[in-house]
């Protein structure tokens, strides 16, 4: 434990200076607030349990509705007795009856805290963001979890594991998920201040939805099977490695992501018809993709509107047959390696020097029939060696 001064932090447009004791659990500078109750940890990987630190605000409607599989033991954490779950149920917390310290949130509101536990759920779906019209819990209601820890007990499931769906998670700062052979769709959308995300001992997440979520430090993505528009508007500095061992769906994998760098993307067998369509489309802040190793046949609109993108490297482009508007409205590409390419590509109006264009030509394979490479309006267009490409059967538009 150490005494740290947080300094100025901004939440919901308000600035508050907070001095408090914190415990060090992160290397990014962020500290788990010391006043937060610690969540239990699990040592047995076969344990199936959900723990969530839930903030109960003074003079506010603090509600939670759960709909989970099996007959787990549920503890709302407010002193009421734990019970055996049998059907979807709503909890409305009474701030005044909760014992424990009154804390002050970043914006000055008073809150108390409870630890919700759901012990021994099964694989038939898990939803802690269910709606309840009777109690006015709807898709606009926020969920007050600040810290979530899940051990999935090495289960294999195709059922959804829903932390939220369209609902917001404005307070969630830590999410840790462990011990899964396979989960269904894990939805973690609309979390705006996530500091720490961890996946440990997770073999496969069929879908990891991070739409409209902001994560303040990079994390190791688990292997993922399906990723249709799964990262739209995800704000994250960089992604080290994104692996899809068996691709189920993949339309717009990183479309609209707000990310500076993706170090590598790897895909195994492909069962998706859309494959690399709209791959990183509209990723305006993306500067670099380290290495793409995927047996996709199409990247139409794949990099469209990636106006900051400087470097793209394909491990093997020989499977690709559709490059329609792949680099439409890019403009800043300086390095492009298309190893084994056999089809035409339009890289016009970018920033390729003659050396870079020559390197791209060198990376090409032999053209499959009549194929056209368009390189107009690059700095090196006039001086590059187009015979490298024409010698492989390509027609080159300069």
């Amino acid at each position, binding site marked *: 434990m150490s005494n740290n001064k947080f300094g100025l932090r901004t939440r919901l447009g308000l600035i508050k200076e907070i001095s408090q004791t914190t415990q060090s659990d992160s290397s990014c500078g962020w500290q788990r607030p010391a006043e937060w109750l610690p969540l239990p940890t699990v040592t047995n990987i076969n344990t199936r349990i959900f723990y969530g630190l839930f903030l109960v605000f003074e003079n506010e409607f603090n509600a939670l509705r759960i709909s989970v599989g099996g007959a787990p033991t549920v503890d709302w954490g407010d002193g009421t007795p734990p019970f055996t779950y049998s059907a979807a149920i709503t909890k409305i917390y009474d701030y005044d009856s909760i014992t424990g310290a009154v804390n002050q949130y970043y914006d000055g509101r008073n809150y108390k805290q409870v630890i919700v536990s759901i012990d021994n759920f099964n694989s038939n779906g898990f939803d802690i963001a269910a709606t309840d019209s009777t109690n006015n819990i709807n898709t606009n209601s926020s969920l007050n979890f600040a810290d979530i820890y899940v051990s999935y007990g090495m289960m294999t499931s195709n059922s959804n594991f829903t932390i939220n769906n369209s609902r917001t998670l404005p307070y969630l700062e830590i999410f840790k998920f462990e011990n899964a052979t396979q989960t269904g769709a894990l939805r973690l959308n609309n979390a705006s201040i996530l500091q720490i995300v961890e996946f440990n001992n997770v073999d496969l997440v069929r879908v990891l939805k991070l739409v409209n979520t902001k994560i303040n430090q990079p994390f190791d993505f688990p292997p993922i099977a399906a990723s249709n528009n799964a990262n739209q508007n995800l704000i994250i500095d960089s992604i080290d490695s994104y692996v899809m061992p068996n691709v189920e769906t993949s339309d*717009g994998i990183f479309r609209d992501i707000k990310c500076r760098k993706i170090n590598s993307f790897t895909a195994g067998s492909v069962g998706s018809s859309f494959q690399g*369509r*709209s791959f990183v*489309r*509209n990723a305006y802040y993306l500067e670099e993709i380290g290495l793409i190793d995927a047996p996709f046949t199409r990247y139409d*609109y794949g990099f*469209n509107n990636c106006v900051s993108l400087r470097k793209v490297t394909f491990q093997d482009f020989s499977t690709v047959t559709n490059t*329609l*508007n792949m680099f439409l409205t890019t403009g800043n590409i300086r390095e492009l390696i298309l190893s084994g390419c056999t089809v035409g590509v339009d890289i016009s109006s970018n920033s390729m020097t003659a050396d870079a264009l020559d390197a791209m030509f060198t990376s090409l394979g032999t*053209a499959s029939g*009549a194929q*056209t490479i*368009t390189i*107009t309006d690059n700095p090196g267009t006039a001086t590059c060696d*187009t015979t490298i490409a*024409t*010698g*492989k*059967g*390509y*027609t*080159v*538009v*300069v």
Partner: protein
Amino acid sequence: MYYKNDIENNMWYKGREVRFPNGIIIKDGNPQSYDGWEWLEEPPQEYLDWLIRLELEEETQT
């Protein structure tokens, strides 16, 4: 500008200078046409229609 319609792949290409695998280079309208490339002062209507279709497709994907 030279224009070429690749009907099989539903693609259009255009450029002022085109270099072919056989060493032929066409540039600035000389020659007027070669291997499906046509030099035109104005873009053909079919090309403009294709662009509009692409824009519509782009909007539906966004």
